[in-house]
């Protein structure tokens, strides 16, 4: 092998490393991604120069087809569909590994009747097995997220024993494939088994947990690339594959923690049987959308105006100090930040005033209900912190409600409403608040002080 090509591969590897490293920081992530893309280009060029001239044309056609599809999909897709796109691309990567490995096997064993050494043999079956799972697993994930497959967890009895059986069968097939190389049947059986396993491990997982699954499958596809590297004795595949494999596992772990899941249960498949986002504690019938601290942080960061509606929950959580911090952070980013004070928020007249003054929020940031009520409709984000009755639209709309007729803050009119409270618990008046189920409303569950502390931490990172 030519030393220059090897050197190019080394450079590509380093670029991948630097690229991933830089993707740890928001400010550098884009450069990182671009560096990594340059690395990929170098690797591809270094590979293309060593192929025979006659093949070049085929290769270029394939690359052009692939690029066209890739670019089309990448630019066509809605921003909200990003996770499913990643799943789709990932699946293709896995399938590519399968194809390369079978191709290599076929060439050596079937067409040229070479004897494949054991290391290469093991590498081939591993690559096929992992790649196969990645492919179908990713496809199911994609289908679930895009609504093409039932998004709910599909559970049936004996799932786990069946998976175990298939796994054992795969091992047997692998061993046979390595031992009796001449017969391609084992390899094909293995391929089929891995594809089936991919389906079965992802199907019982609910839609809400898909991001973790995709991250894991992403790690698998790295491992598949890595084993392909062993098949082809190629360093750049090994380094890049190892990087993705390892970083994917870590990332999965981090995401699990963020979602309060254990990695083990993900690895076994079929965790999180029911989608857990409907908060049942308060016995509420309202269907709400939950939001994570990170997304909330992004919403704040991309807003140009924010109004905070504090309520009794802020007082209970003693969250006033951390909210002041949030306000300072937003103001530093030129986000217009005000507080809408409802006259009866809290449990005594002026309750919010006392607490916000204690936290050193300047008086001129506090706006009375009547002065701010018309401005909600021009506001990007309304952040309701432990308030409930004072933003309950039933006061305007439902004559049966005990709070009907009470003037309220028109928080529901804002573009996005984020609500920080612990549960679906009711307020002082003891009535349901259907605002929480509105399409523009996102629930940020948890003690206000704790969640907002996290939120602030998150925003500082950005």
């Amino acid at each position, binding site marked *: 092998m030519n030393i220059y090509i090897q050197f190019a591969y080394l450079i590509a590897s380093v670029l991948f490393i630097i690229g991933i490293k830089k993707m740890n920081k928001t400010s550098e992530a884009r450069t990182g991604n671009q560096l*990594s893309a340059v690395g990929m280009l170098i690797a591809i060029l270094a590979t293309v120069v060593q192929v025979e001239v006659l*093949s070049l044309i085929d290769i270029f056609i394939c690359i052009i087809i692939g690029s066209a599809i890739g670019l089309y999909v990448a630019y066509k897709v809605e921003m909200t569909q990003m996770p499913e796109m990643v799943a789709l691309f990932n699946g293709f990567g896995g399938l590519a590994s399968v194809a390369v490995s079978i191709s290599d096997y076929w060439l050596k064993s079937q*067409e040229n009747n070479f004897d494949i050494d054991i290391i290469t043999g093991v590498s081939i079956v591993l690559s096929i097995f992992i790649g196969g799972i990645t492919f179908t697993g990713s496809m199911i994930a994609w289908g679930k997220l895009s609504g093409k497959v039932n998004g709910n967890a599909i559970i049936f009895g004996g799932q786990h024993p069946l998976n175990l059986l298939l796994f054992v069968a795969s091992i047997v097939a692998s061993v046979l494939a390595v031992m009796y190389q001449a017969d391609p049947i084992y390899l094909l059986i293995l391929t089929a088994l891995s594809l089936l396993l991919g389906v079965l491990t992802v199907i019982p997982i609910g839609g809400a947990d898909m991001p973790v699954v995709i991250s894991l499958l992403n790690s698998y596809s790295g491992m598949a690339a890595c084993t392909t590297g062993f098949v082809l004795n190629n360093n750049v*595949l090994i380094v890049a594959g190892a990087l993705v494999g390892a970083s994917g596992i870590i990332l999965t772990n981090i995401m699990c923690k963020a979602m309060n899941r254990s990695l083990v249960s993900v690895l076994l498949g079929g965790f999180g049987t029911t989608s857990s986002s409907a908060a049942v504690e308060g016995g509420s019938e309202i269907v709400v959308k939950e939001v994570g601290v*990170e997304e909330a942080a992004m919403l704040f960061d991309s807003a140009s105006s924010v109004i905070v509606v504090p309520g009794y929950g802020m007082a209970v959580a003693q969250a006033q100090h951390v909210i002041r911090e949030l306000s300072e952070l937003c103001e530093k980013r030129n986000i217009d930040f005000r507080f809408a004070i409802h006259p009866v928020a809290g449990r005594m007249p002026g309750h919010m005033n006392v607490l916000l003054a204690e936290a050193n929020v300047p008086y001129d940031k506090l706006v009375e209900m009547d002065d701010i009520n018309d401005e909600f409709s021009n506001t990007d984000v309304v952040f309701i912190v432990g308030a409930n009755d004072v933003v309950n639209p039933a006061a305007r709309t439902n004559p049966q409600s005990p709070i009907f007729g009470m003037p309220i803050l028109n928080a529901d009119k804002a573009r996005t409403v984020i609500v920080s409270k612990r549960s679906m618990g009711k307020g002082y008046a003891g009535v349901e608040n259907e605002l929480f189920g509105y399409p523009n409303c996102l629930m940020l569950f948890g003690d206000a002080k704790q969640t907002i502390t996290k939120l602030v931490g998150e925003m500082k990172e950005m």
Partner: protein
Amino acid sequence: MNLEALILLLYVLVLGSYLGFELIAKVPPTLHTPLMSGSNAISGITIVGAILASNELGYTHVSKWLGMLAIILATINVVGGYAVTDRMLKMFKKK
């Protein structure tokens, strides 16, 4: 593949994996999806293998067709992956 080469490859594998672990020490959750997407693009490195595999002459060979299929798939992964990641990251640009 001989053992000596295997050992060296194993070194590369171990060091690469360790680096992978180290690199993702502290990703802010906002970057989870872009990072996943970006590293997914990297896993499209299989394209190198695919190109080598399709470096077969006859169109009659299964390997050739498999290789070409692999190129298409891997290219989608690579190109789509980088492009999508870039789109996502563009949003982080400070106003």
